[in-house]
């Protein structure tokens, strides 16, 4: 039972972070389908730092450097979306898809290149971080991560930032009616850049949390297995509101965790369902949720539409 709680919290943190990222981006008016790729890059940044640091490093230093690295790589990667979607008015779905494909391909190439450079007999795309990962755990042996606490803090910060500050309200105005926002002197381009970069920051961190969630190595050729898209479903389910996104993330995290630990529950093993069913569960649930909640969608009105000063 405690195992289920551990994994639920971990996966919920991942989904919450990434969905919050999507939330910022979409409130500024840019659809971020590329969250999956951003996660991969954030994970790559964090994993590379973990690979470099020695296992005896102070836990606080490990956490700080990994978190900063993943946020930074996520943010830099999200610039690809920002430049294309904001400056060049490109099709945001297409750019996002390209970013997802590029994320996995580029991360695989980078990790393989590093691995073969250090040891020519190791052409794998796997980074292992068995010992150093322990720095993230609050109690040794239990999968409660400091990153979960950080996620809660970031949730509170997001709520305050989005609803209680001038910046947040301006950001949301740009996603609802950019021309109106521009007419009162808000720089729509800057705001959209801010939205996308924040989503890169949160998405990158989400990637780090995901690859440290109960595993001690990561195969980068697998990307992040559709988690970026699950996060988008969480965001839609949460109605683009951080508080509700948090609840949605908990629900989704629970179902994802179930596929990891269902064997520990006698009544579930007695059902004798193949493990594939549990693997499918999060995706099926999110599809069902989308079916129920998409009809009266509260999406920002101007999302996905490139900002054109001239149109009113």
């Amino acid at each position, binding site marked *: 039972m405690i195992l289920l709680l551990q994994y639920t919290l971990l996966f919920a943190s991942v989904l919450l972070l990434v969905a919050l990222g999507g939330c910022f981006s979409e409130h500024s008016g840019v659809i971020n389908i590329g969250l999956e790729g951003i996660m991969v890059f954030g994970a790559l940044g964090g994993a590379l730092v973990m690979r470099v640091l020695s296992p005896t490093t102070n836990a606080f230093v490990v956490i700080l450097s990994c978190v900063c690295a993943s946020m930074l790589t996520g943010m830099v990667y999200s610039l690809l979306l920002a430049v294309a979607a904001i400056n060049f008015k490109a099709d945001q779905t297409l750019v996002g898809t390209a970013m997802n494909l590029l994320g996995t391909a580029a991360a695989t190439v980078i990790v393989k290149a590093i691995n073969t450079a250090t040891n020519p007999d190791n052409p794998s795309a796997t980074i292992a971080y068995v010992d150093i990962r322990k720095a993230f755990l609050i109690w040794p042996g239990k999968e409660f991560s400091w990153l979960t606490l950080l996620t809660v803090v970031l949730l509170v910060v997001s709520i305050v930032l989005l609803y209680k500050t001038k910046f947040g309200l301006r950001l949301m105005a740009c996603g609802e009616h950019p021309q109106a926002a521009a007419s009162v002197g808000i720089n729509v381009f800057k705001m959209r850049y801010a939205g996308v970069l924040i989503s890169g920051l949160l998405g990158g961190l989400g990637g780090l949390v995901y690859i440290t969630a109960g595993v001690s190595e990561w195969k980068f050729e*697998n990307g992040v297995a559709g988690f970026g898209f699950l996060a988008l479903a969480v965001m839609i389910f949460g109605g683009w509101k951080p508080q509700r996104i948090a609840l949605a993330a908990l629900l989704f995290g629970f179902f994802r965790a179930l596929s990891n630990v269902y064997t520990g529950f006698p009544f579930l093993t007695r059902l004798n369902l193949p493990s594939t069913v549990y693997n499918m569960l999060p995706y099926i649930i999110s599809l069902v949720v989308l079916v129920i909640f998409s009809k009266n969608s509260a999406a920002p009105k101007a999302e996905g539409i490139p900002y054109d000063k001239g149109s009113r």
Partner: protein
Amino acid sequence: MEKNKTSFLKKPAVQTLLASLICILLGLLVGFVVLLLINPAGAWNAMKTIMLNFWTFNSTRGQLKNLGNTLVKTAPLLMCSLSVLFAYKVGLFNIGAAGQYVAGVGMSLFFAIGMKAPWWLCVIMATLAGALLGAISGFLKATRNVNEVISCIMLNWISLYLVNMLLAPYMDINMSETWSLKKNFPAAVLPTLGFDKLLNNHQYITLAVPLSVVIAVCIWVLLTKTKMGFELRATGLNKNAARYCGMRDRFNIVLTMAIAGGLAGMGASMYYLTDMIKWPMAVTAVPAMGFNGIAAAFLGGLHPIGAIFSSFFIQHITDGGSFMEKIYPAEIAGLISAVIIYMCAFVLFFKQQMNKDRRSGKKGGKAS
């Protein structure tokens, strides 16, 4: 002369071709830079290997064999790219081609091995499975306003796990993959119709390769020359206007996704029923074929005939990537196609630039 040149550059077809070439150039450039970063010494050779693919082999035999291999894989890629572009013409982004392709794999192998069905039945079932999966996305989009991109991604993973489950009983335990069709179920292997003779009796060339080209032409005719194609495109351009004109907009969305899904599903059967590839045990990642289809569709300027060439090109560099020296990861080819898709997002901008300047001088040159 100057005037002629200007009008030549203003032709939409020329601009599309130019834009695609720009995308390819930039993609290859990025790939080359990455190769240089990994190991500058062999980078140029590796790049040549990617671009030459089968021409790197010395004997005609080797060349024909590898050209054939590329062609066999081009057929399913072309089908996937047709699937993506068909949906895109109707305003839908079919990122689910990958999942529909997987459904097609599952059905064709299930009917070939489990039901011992003849090849044509396997192809039909694969097409139907893909169509069903596509129709689900289309139905959810039309009736419940579910973003087709997200529903497609979810269905990709669901179909991957379902197919794993469906094909689990038909594995050759020694090889950890599905049974070889040629050895055990020859009735399910696609007929060659003599096309294998063209390439030195190639082992895997079947009617699939020419058939995929024929289907590309059919899709072009369907989209541009028929009433149905017109209605579908009208629905894509403006759903409300289409409805006002008496077109069944919701039905059209479902129909589009069903056709798109059917194309991807059929593509899978065109590849897996050649026996060149088998489904391994417990696959954990959705096959790249459907995603490469997106690259091919956009690179081909979203035109069915263009897709024939772009599919071949994408498959060509992907296969070329696998012949590189082992210090270079084969995924570079995937990276190049991802950069190409990214660049395709700028095509609109390139075209604007080409149309903007009156003298086709400074700015046009900069954009190309």
